[in-house]
C-alpha cells in the first residue's frame, strides 16, 4: 500500500532547509555564548593538589618498569604508607569531601548555567517547530519503519493509511538534533556540549583526556533532552554530576590500591640483549 505522494517544492524550500540552517546557527550561537559566559573560576588549591598527586601516582604506575626495583619501592612507600602517605585517606574524610563538593554553591550555579544554556535553545526551537510546522508531511525517510513508529513520527498527520516513511517536521527536527552533532564537531573543533565534563576534569586537576567520557556523557545528555524536556531531567543531571565527583575522591583510594597491586619487573636488562642483537645485525 505504498503510494508515492507528490510533495510540494515549497515544503523543501520553506521547511527542510530553513530548519536545518536554523539549527546549525543556533548550535554555533550556543557555542560562542557558552564560551563568553564561562566564568573563570579560581580553582581550589586542595583539589588541584589532589589531582596532581593522582597524576603522579598514575605516572609511577605506568612507568614502573623503567626504574630499578628499589627506587620503585621507595616511591611506592612514599605514596601509600599508613602515616603520611599522600594517597592514604581515612574513611571519614573521603565522605566529607564528597558532601562538601555537592553543596558548593558556585559549582552548582555553574552547572545550572550550563544545563540551561543547553535546554533553553532546544526547548524554544522545539516549540517553534511545533507552532509553525505542524500538520503536514515534511519529508520522506528512505528506509521503512514499522507501524509502531507512526505515532512518534507523524504526530500532525491524522491519516492512518499514509506510509510511515512520510514523516512530520517534528521528526525532521529530532533527526537534525542527533545528526548535526557530527557536523558541529567538525566545524567547531571540539565537542561543545561537553564543556561541563571538561571543566570538571580541569578542576580536579586531571591531565586526562575526557574524550571517551565526552561521548558517553553527551549521549546520555542528548537522550535525556530528547525524551523529556521538563524539569525531571535536571535532578538526573545533578545525580550524574555528584557521581562523577564522588568518583574523583574515591579515586585516591583506587590509585592507592592500583599502586599496591603493581608487580615490578625491571625491563632494562632486556635492553642490553636487544642492543646486542641490533649491533650484531648492523655489523654483519
Amino acid at each position: 500500500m505504498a503510494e508515492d505522494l507528490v510533495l510540494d517544492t515549497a515544503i523543501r524550500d520553506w521547511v527542510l532547509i530553513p530548519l536545518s540552517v536554523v539549527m546549525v546557527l543556533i548550535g554555533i550561537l550556543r557555542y560562542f555564548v557558552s564560551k563568553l559566559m564561562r566564568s573563570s573560576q579560581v580553582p581550589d588549591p586542595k583539589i588541584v593538589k589532589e589531582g596532581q598527586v593522582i597524576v603522579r601516582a598514575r605516572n609511577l604506575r605506568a612507568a614502573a618498569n623503567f626504574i630499578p626495583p628499589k627506587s620503585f619501592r621507595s616511591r611506592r612507600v612514599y605514596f601509600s604508607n599508613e602515616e603520611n602517605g599522600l594517597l592514604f585517606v581515612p574513611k571519614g574524610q573521603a565522605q566529607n569531601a564528597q558532601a562538601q563538593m555537592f553543596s558548593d554553591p558556585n559549582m552548582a550555579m555553574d552547572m545550572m548555567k550550563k544545563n540551561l544554556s543547553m535546554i533553553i535553545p532546544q526547548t524554544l526551537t522545539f516549540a517553534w517547530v511545533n507552532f509553525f510546522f505542524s500538520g503536514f508531511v515534511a519529508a520522506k525517510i528512505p528506509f521503512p519503519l514499522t507501524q509502531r513508529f507512526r505515532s512518534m513520527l507523524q504526530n500532525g498527520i491524522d491519516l492512518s493509511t499514509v506510509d510511515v516513511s512520510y514523516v512530520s517536521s517534528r521528526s525532521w527536527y529530532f533527526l537534525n538534533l542527533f545528526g548535526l552533532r557530527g557536523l558541529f564537531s567538525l566545524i567547531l573543533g571540539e565537542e561543545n556540549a561537553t564543556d561541563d565534563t571538561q571543566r570538571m576534569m580541569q578542576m580536579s586537576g586531571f591531565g586526562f583526556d575526557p574524550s571517551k567520557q565526552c561521548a558517553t556523557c553527551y549521549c546520555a545528555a542528548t537522550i535525556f533532552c530528547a525524551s523529556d524536556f521538563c524539569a525531571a531531567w535536571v535532578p538526573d543531571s545533578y545525580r550524574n554530576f555528584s557521581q562523577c565527583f564522588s568518583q574523583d575522591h574515591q579515586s585516591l583510594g583506587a590509585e592507592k590500591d592500583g599502586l599496591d597491586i603493581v608487580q615490578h619487573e625491571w625491563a632494562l636488562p632486556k635492553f642490553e640483549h636487544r642492543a646486542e642483537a641490533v649491533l650484531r645485525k648492523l655489523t654483519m
Partner: protein
Amino acid sequence: MTGHSDSSSSEKKSNEEMNDVPVFSAENMQNNMKVIYYSRTFMSIIGGVIAGILGFTGFMGFVFYFLVMTITSIGLIAKAKFSVHLYVDSWNRIILDGFMGGLMSFVLFWTFAYDIVHIF
C-alpha cells in the same frame, strides 16, 4: 573542510621505541584518535549525501554505510602505512572505533539528499 585536510597529514607516531614493553605517548595517541573520529564523521556525511543522490532506500542504504565505513578504515590503515601498531595501541581502535558514531549523521544527510533529489 580545513579540519579534515590538516588532520590527515598530522598523524603522529605514538609508539616510538620498539621495545618488548610498548611505550605510548598519550598525547599523540589522543591526536590520532581525534583524527580517526574526524575522518569517520566526514566520510559518513559525504556517504550520506551520495546515498541520497543515488536513491538508495531501506537496507541498501545501511549496507552502503558499512561500505563507506570499511573504505574509511582501509584508507586510515593505508595512511598509517600498514604498521598500525606505531600509531594506535590495537587494531580495534582503527577499525571499529566510531563505527556507530557516524550513523546518525549519515541518516540525516541521506534523508536530506534523498528528499531534495527524489521527492521534491
